[in-house]
């Protein structure tokens, strides 16, 4: 009996010792886990970079929204035709447009002063996680008068940065590629600068019923803008040339 009692006591001690070891292991895993996750969440929380649309005060008022929304213009502001693009830096179609079609548009219409080109941001944030930050990055480059260089570079390098979990280091590298002052660019990127205008551009696109990118619209003077069904050069050319032709004179006049 006493022998059995002794065995039970030893078994209890052994079990208790095993449990103590187990709690030490569990505690160590908990400490490491809290450290790693806490650092990761905390460091991101400390970053002030706006990566998503913000709340816009008064955006329900269309006239206020039109004031807040601002495109980036290229070409002669007095040109008779205006070509507008609503684009997303993470959208492959926008990349194709920026790298293949827009250079032709520039050559045929913008450089000769026949049309000016305006780019509005339309980051499709539900499917393109980095598009809002990319839009802000381009506008930060615009603060140093390098918007279009940075814009084109973002599309050229789209495949590289868009699949990264955090494209910020790439965006900072591109600042050097296009000759930006790096500290000022980094300060801008790690803030909420331009978040308001990018958000306003998104809301404006919603008001216009635009949900796909690139969306191209063409207008003459203060006339109604015409939304194009495609974004190939021929479609744009046909529309712009058609708008530039003088209106047919009625017979007899």
């Amino acid at each position, binding site marked *: 009996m006493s022998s059995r009692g002794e065995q039970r006591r030893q*078994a209890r001690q052994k079990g208790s010792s095993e*449990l103590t070891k*187990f709690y030490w292991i569990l505690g160590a895993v908990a400490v490491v886990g809290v450290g790693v*996750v806490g650092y990761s*969440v905390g460091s*991101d*929380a400390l970053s002030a970079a706006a990566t998503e649309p913000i709340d816009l005060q008064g955006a329900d008022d269309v006239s206020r929204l039109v004031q807040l929304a601002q495109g980036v213009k290229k070409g002669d502001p007095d040109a008779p035709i205006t070509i507008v693009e609503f684009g997303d830096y993470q959208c492959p179609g926008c990349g194709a447009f920026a790298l293949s079609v827009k250079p032709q548009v520039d050559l045929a219409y913008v450089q000769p002063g026949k049309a000016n080109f305006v780019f509005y941001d339309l980051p499709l944030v*539900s499917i393109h996680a980095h598009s809002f930050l990319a839009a802000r990055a381009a506008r930060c480059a615009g603060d140093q008068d390098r918007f279009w260089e940075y814009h084109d570079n973002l599309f050229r390098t789209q495949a590289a940065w868009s699949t990264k*979990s955090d494209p910020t280091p790439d965006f900072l590298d591109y600042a050097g590629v296009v000759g930006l002052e790096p500290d000022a660019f980094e300060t801008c990127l790690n803030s909420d600068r331009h978040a308001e205008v990018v958000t306003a551009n998104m809301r404006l696109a919603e008001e216009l019923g635009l949900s796909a990118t690139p969306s191209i619209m063409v207008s003459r003077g203060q006339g109604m803008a015409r939304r194009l069904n495609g974004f190939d050069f021929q479609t744009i050319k046909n529309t712009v040339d058609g708008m530039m032709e003088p209106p047919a004179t009625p017979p007899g006049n």
Partner: protein
Amino acid sequence: MGEAEVLDTGAGADAPAPVNRMVVAVLSLVGLFVAFYLMAHSFGWTGPLVCGIGECETVQSSRWAKVGEVPVSAIGFAGYATLLGLSVAGLQPGRRSSRGLGLLLLAGSGAGVAFSAWLTYLEAAVIHAWCQWCVTSAILITLIFLAALPEARRIRGGGDAR
């Protein structure tokens, strides 16, 4: 009357702590942190996910990342927390041979494996993108299920299983 049934009444205080439940507890705690990290991202508490392998953002921003309004990661967090609680409870003197806890551990981890298999199928065949954290979680829940398998013997009343 089987031994396990007797031990269910509390007579199992002297049974050794089941190693398989310790393994389940440790793996569940690791899974809890993985799920918390993904959940923190889905609730906007953190920035872009650290994702050395795969396309975590593509997976996490897909419509499959939520069940209704509930992020999948939150379901995972609740699941791992439950498995952790059950396994630690099953290590306490008097509960080490509990068939009820064994059944819950086996059924819970089995359901987790099934849910995880469905999510892995979605990544491979529907989303066409992989998230390293989701794959890590799938591996963890599979290991937890394997570690919980000895519970089947305990449930059948076959005595202690290590």
